[in-house]
Structures are given as C-alpha cells and as structure tokens.
C-alpha cells in the first residue's frame, strides 16, 4: 500500500519510503476542487454582471468618470482582499464565510447582525439585480436587435414588454423560481451545471462582446448609423443624438478622478471572486492550503478584472468615443436617445453585427449570468442561514436539512418568499428601486471592510486558531499577512462604504436607503440578544459557547 517518493539521501538497496502509510479506514469527503471554487467565484464576481451598472447611469450621475481606470484601481486593491479571505478561509475551511469570521473574531452579535442584515437580508436584492440583468442586458437588447435584423415588430413589442414593469416582474419571479429549484437540487447539481453549461456560454458571450467592441470610433459610428437607418422615424443617428443632447444643454464633462474613484463603490464588486468562501469552503478540497486558496482567488480575480471589465469597458469607451457615450447617456436620462432595448453596452455592442446567431450568443451569456446570480445567492445564503441555525442564532428550523432534497430546504423556502416580496416591492414602489438596486452592492463592500477588520483581529485575538493556521508566520513588511491585507481591505472597502452613505452622487443617501442599511443591522443585533436570552431561559442553551475560541489543553 505504501507509495510515493523515496528519500534520495538514504543510500540502501531498498530505501525507506517517506510516504505516509494509510490503513483501511473510511474517509474523506470534500468533493469540490479549488478549480470549481474559482469558476464559482468568477461567476459570482459578476462576469458580465457589472456591465448592468456601467452604462448609461454612471456617465450621468458621475460625469467624467473613466470606467476602465476604475476597474483597474479595483483590480489593484483586490489581492489584499483575496489575502484576507484566503487567510481566514484556510484557517477555518467551513461554510459561513463573513458570518463565520466576524462572529468569531469581531463579536457574535455584530457577526450575526452584519451577516443577517447585510448579507442574508440585503443580498436578496441580487435576485432583483439578476432579473434586471436578464431583461436589460439580455432579453431586451436581444429582442430589440433581432426585431430589426429579422424585421419583426412583434419582437420589438416583446423587447419593450420585458423592459416594462410587468415583464420585469414575471422575469424576476421566474429567475427566483429557477434559483430556488437549483438550490433544492443541491450543490453537486450546480457544480455540474456551472462547469458544463454556464461557464462555456458565459466565456463565449464575454469573448463575443470584446470582439464586437474591438473597433475604431469611425467603424462604431458607421455601424450605429446603419442600424438607425432601418427605422429613421424612431431611431436616431449618432449625429442626431449629439445634436439633440447639445440642444438640451448637454456639455461633455472633462475627465474626473474624483468620480472615477467614487465609481469604486460599484467596481469593487469585482473582488467577489472570493465569494466561494461564503458557501463552498466546507466542501472544497485543499481549502486549508492558504497559498493555493489565495492563488485560486487571484486567478479568478485577474480574469474578472481584466477580461470581464477592464478590457470591455476600455474597448467600449474607445469605440463609442467618450463624448458620444456621454451624450447618449445624458439623452437617455433626460429624454429619448432613440435607442430602446435598454440603451446598454450590450445593446450598442449587438448593433455592431447583423448576425442573429452572434446576437443570440452574446445575449445568452447575460441571461445566464442573471439567472446564475439569483441561484448563487440562494446557494450561498441558505448555507449561511444553515450555519446560523447550527449556532442557534437563528431558529433550528433554518438548519434543517431536507431528507428528500438533502439541502437546507427550509432556508431556501424562506429565501424564496423573501425574494418574491422584495421583487413585488421593487415594481410597486419606485422610490425603493435605487436603494434596492445598490443595497446588495453596497453591503457586499461593507462586508469586505468588516471582514478586513477581522483579518487584523485574527492576528490579535485568534490565539491558537491563528498560531495553527497555515498563514501563521507569513509576513509583509514585517506585518502578519492577515493584518496587513486586512488593514488595506478595511481602509479601502470601509472608505467606499462610508462614501456610499454620505456622497449624494452615489444615490444611496436617501433616508429610505440609510434606514434599509442601518435599521436592518440594528434590528438584527436586537434579535441576537433577545433570542439568546430566550434560548438560555427556556432551552438551556448558551449560544455564546458557539463563538468562544477553545485553546488546547
């Protein structure tokens, strides 16, 4: 049974083997590989997804910003974030992610508060975001472009329907249902799905988007005008758009470093390659290997940062020309740019081809990423709720694993109900739309900041958990890696979070938005203490035990 290399230093006729001899015993179990986790992270970090936010909104609210520069800045900071999550994840390779780290190293009440309010509760808005992605970057542009390529008014009507309230709500409920069903099917089913279907199509779509945008400004204008010529009564040429914008008072803004930095509140989401830590590390092989985990996050981060965002946004700005892009965005916000189909990067890119096949393949990636987003939230948040249920910070009901589906079905059911309620609210109450759309992104960044703080506390308060972790002894400039990287993540992500709450340009400074973020946090903390007191008195359970570090004998 003994295998493996022999020691070259032992000079005998039959050298002793240094390989571990393993007796017959039942064993091991983790079935996700780090490669699977990378794929999961790439998709979770939003390959294509962030393009929903990239145009035309920011060009109006943050005039003069440079999209590729913002994504480049985000990419430069992201290794610090990956280092923190790899350090904490390899020390505690379990499901639960931010909740696990914050409840153990910051404070149980804060860990639960942030975990429930800023992840479980507010990330349900990602089902809304996923549906918007499907409609505004997928179905809307697809049907809009096909309607002209195939000369079908019916497709144009269908495009407009999906971009309206009813179409959005139907899409959102469908996306939620799909996420729920895949969640019930289990992580293993999802693992097969992401590798065999989702990733290839998304990569193809991402590649086609780059090819469509890789052109000169003159070529872009020529294709844009050729598209508009198909329906001169409805669609405007590039020159007509610029003229209409100038007539309305549009002035092309100069480059703004301030607004580029403020866009980090969105661009930061590309760091979420380490999203796998939330739900998968308990099932991932070699998750306790810091170096490999960091490398896995980094590979995913480089892909997402460069291929999904820096390159496409650079090509987009280069092809459209900043002045035309700004005028188009300004006109979209103030009137009619004459381009339906969402007026998005996807719409403009699809105008560059007359091939229905290319249009379909390009939009398919956006549609799948949108559906994926809802699914990803379901998969991860049900496991976080399950971890909370196991700790008894939530009722045991949430941790119950269905004997039929082999997944935390109660948590999934709760989440489906919450998602339906949020999506109906989104359609019925327009004033909550911006807070909801940005809420998940903002709190994602906020969670990274708080976990960055946990990286510092891990070194200070981690005790034996830190000393026995694989990152122990690794230093940068004489500072332990988790503390060094944690400080960068805290300053950066914390700064972005505070900016979101105080800078009006970012659209999150309404009272509705602040109440959503801060009141949900306060209520979650109140729940923690009330439920803890009830459990202690009525069930003999002291949930503080779940969070105490246990030093060896």
């Amino acid at each position, binding site marked *: 049974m003994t295998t493996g*290399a022999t020691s070259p230093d032992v000079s005998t006729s039959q050298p002793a083997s240094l390989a571990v001899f393993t007796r017959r015993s*039942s064993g091991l179990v983790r079935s996700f590989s780090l490669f699977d986790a990378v794929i999961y992270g790439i998709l979770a970090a939003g390959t294509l997804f962030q393009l929903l936010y990239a145009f035309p909104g920011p060009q109006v609210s943050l005039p003069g910003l440079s999209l590729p520069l913002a994504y480049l800045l985000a990419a430069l900071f992201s290794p610090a974030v990956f280092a923190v999550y790899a350090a904490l994840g390899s020390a505690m390779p379990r499901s639960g992610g931010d909740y696990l780290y914050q409840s153990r190293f910051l404070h149980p009440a804060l860990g639960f508060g942030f975990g429930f309010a800023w992840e479980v509760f507010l990330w349900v808005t990602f089902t809304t975001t996923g549906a918007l992605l499907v409609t505004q970057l997928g179905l809307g542009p697809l049907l809009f472009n096909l309607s002209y390529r195939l000369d079908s008014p019916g497709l144009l009507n269908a495009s407009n329907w999906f971009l309206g309230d009813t179409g959005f709500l139907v899409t959102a409920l469908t996306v939620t249902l799909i996420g729920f069903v895949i969640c019930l099917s289990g992580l293993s089913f999802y693992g097969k799905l992401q590798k065999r279907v989702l990733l290839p199509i998304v990569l193809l779509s991402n590649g086609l988007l780059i090819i469509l945008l890789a052109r000169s400004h003159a070529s872009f204008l020529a294709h844009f005008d050729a598209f508009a010529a198909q329906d001169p009564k409805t669609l405007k040429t590039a020159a007509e758009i610029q003229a209409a914008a100038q007539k309305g008072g549009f002035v092309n803004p100069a480059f703004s470093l301030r607004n580029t930095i403020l866009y980090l509140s969105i661009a930061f989401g590309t760091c979420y390659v380490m999203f796998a830590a939330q739900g998968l590390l308990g099932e991932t092989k070699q998750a306790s290997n810091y170096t490999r985990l960091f490398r896995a996050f980094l590979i995913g981060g480089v892909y997402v940062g460069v291929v999904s965002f820096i390159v496409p946004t650079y090509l987009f700005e280069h092809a459209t020309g900043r002045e035309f892009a700004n005028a188009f965005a300004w006109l979209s916000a103030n009137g009619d740019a004459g381009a339906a189909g969402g007026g998005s990067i996807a719409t403009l890119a699809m105008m560059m081809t007359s091939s229905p096949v290319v249009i379909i393949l390009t939009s398919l990636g956006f549609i799948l990423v949108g559906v994926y987003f809802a699914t990803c939230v379901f998969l991860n948040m049900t496991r976080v709720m399950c971890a909370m249920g196991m700790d008894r910070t939530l009722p045991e009901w949430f*941790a119950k694993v269905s004997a039929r589906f082999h997944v935390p079905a109660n948590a999934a059911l709760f989440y489906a109900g919450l998602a339906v309620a949020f999506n109906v609210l989104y359609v019925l109450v327009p004033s909550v739309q911006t807070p909801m759309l940005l809420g998940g992104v903002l709190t994602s960044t906020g969670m990274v900041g708080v976990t960055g703080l946990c990286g510092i506390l891990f070194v200070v308060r981690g005790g034996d958990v830190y000393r026995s972790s694989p990152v122990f002894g690794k230093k940068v400039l004489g500072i332990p890696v988790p503390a060094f990287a944690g400080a960068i993540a805290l300053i950066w992500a914390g700064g972005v979070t505070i900016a979101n709450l105080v800078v009006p340009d970012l659209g999150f400074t309404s009272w509705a938005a602040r109440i959503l973020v801060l009141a949900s946090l306060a209520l979650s903390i109140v729940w923690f203490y009330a439920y803890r007191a009830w459990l202690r008195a009525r069930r003999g359970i002291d949930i503080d035990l779940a969070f105490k570090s246990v030093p060896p004998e």
Partner: protein
Amino acid sequence: MFGRRNRASAAPRTRLLFVSDLHGSETTFAKLLRVLELWSPDVLVVGGDVAGKGLWPVIVDNGRRRFSWMGEEHEASADAYAAVRRSALQVGYYPLELPAGELERVQADPEARDAAFDALMRERWADWLARLDARCAELGVHAFVMAGNDDPWSLDDLTSAEREWVRGADGKVLPLLEDGSWTLLTCGLANQTPWQCPRDVTEDELAAALDALAAGVPDFGTTIANIHVPPRGFGLDLAAELDTSVDPPRPVFGSQAPVGSSAVAAFLRARQPAVSLHGHIHESGGAAAIGRTRAFNPGSEYGEGILRGVLVTLRGRDVLGHQFVSG
C-alpha cells in the same frame, strides 16, 4: 407568576456533551479536555473513531530528521521537526521515528508494519484515556467512550478497562446518570463501507446487535442511543458518492448519496429513544427528527484541529434543547 411550575421544570438540568470521530487528532483531543471546563457538561459521550489513519515515517539520522510533509521531502533539525510534528499530530498521524535501516525493515514486512501501527494506536489511546480520566476526575464529569467502525479491535481491552470516571460503553446498556433516570445504549458497529473497516457488518447483523441491546433498555422514553453510524435517509448521512472500482475508493465529483444504515433507521423508528447520537459521516452534521427521537450528528473537522460537538440539555424526563458547538 402565570401558574405553578410542573415537576419536570423544577428538576435540575443535565448537560450532555457528545463528540465523535477524533481520529487520533491530538489538537482536537486536547481541546476536548479543555471544553470539559469551558462548556461545563455534566456528562461526556465520545462516539467512536478515536484512532488515527496514517503512519508517518520519519528517518532519525544523527539528530536530524528526514520526512515527507505536504507532498515535499524535508530534512530538518530536531527543533524544526517539532513544529511539523505538531501539525502531523493535529491530523492524527502516528510518527514512526526510526533510523533508516530499521524503518526499511519495518516497511518491508507488512506484519511488522501493522504491529508498529497498532502499537502506536494503542499507545495514544491509552494516553488519551488516562488524561481524560484525570480531567474528568478533576471536574466531576462522567464520561462514556466507545470504538467506531474505523477503530481496530485491538483497542477494546483499553477501552473497557476499569476506570473511575471514564467507562467503556461499546455494546452495553448503562445508566447515564448516577440516579439512573436516563439510560445510554451504545453500539460502535456500522453497515458495510467501501473501505471494509474493522467493525463494518451487514445490515442484518447490525439490526440483530441493536435488538439485543434493546432488550436491556428499561424505558426508551429516557434512553439515549449512541450509535456510531447515522440512520439512512434523514440528512445526517450524506456523503460524496464513491467510485469503488478503484482502491482506495474515490469520490465522484458532484454526486452525493445517503450512506447511513437502514437498520439504524428502522431501530430508531421502532424503538423511539428520546435522543440518538451519531458520528461517522463527518460532512453531514445536523439534527433530524425521527418520530419522537431527536437525532444528532455533530460532524467532524479533526483534520483542521477543530472540535465539533453537540450539547444536549436534559431536565427530568424531557429533552430541553440542543446546541451545536465547535472550537
């Protein structure tokens, strides 16, 4: 204020700590000794699979040590080796520290290798039992230990030896508390696994063993069934499906299946003990209700040096609550 308390609610609470599948991990066992104070249980039940799985060859050469760790071979001073040795003990390995010639001799002879492995397993288990007994005596905690399907039969004489605070419970029905108000039924056997472990038996044999134990139970309403393998089909037994065409079996990516015992499931359905405690499937920790029986599997992360357990609070004849804990 709102009425008289019934007799049960006035009864004192008893806190039971259940841990399982330590697999020779020194760090995890050391934490167990620590939590007997931190988590303050009145009773401890250790649910089997106490022996480690790997024999770790280390060549001793004039104060230097040569060994393989994390896929790479190292030569180190005794001090540097000590740090790696701690990590090896954390994952439950048994260092076999010998000069090169002697190591070759042991490796060349399967019987000598197995004997060396067995001796090291016995040595660590004997050490653990002694330390656990001393700790329980210090804190006044009664403990029950047993073997699991992975544990060789050669450990049994150590497990069942007479001690004041730590009792060998395998294959027995014992009073859990001194007043006899609760009963502990213990069985370390498991249904057949692809690894053909020492205590793997057929479902029929397992059912017969459980029935034989049941005959000695006075009241299942106040009985805790400590059965190493979880019941099949209640979410406590989900593991990666295995490709048994290779040796050792290999997990099939993306495919999970229940691998618990149908005999245990039938036993729990029919007898309805108040609580059932299980281990065996490390990645399938959780709680389940099987009729009136509350079944628990705390899972295991011994390889990471993490102790996982479940605290069950009893009061009178009632199971008041439970809580999963880890450290």
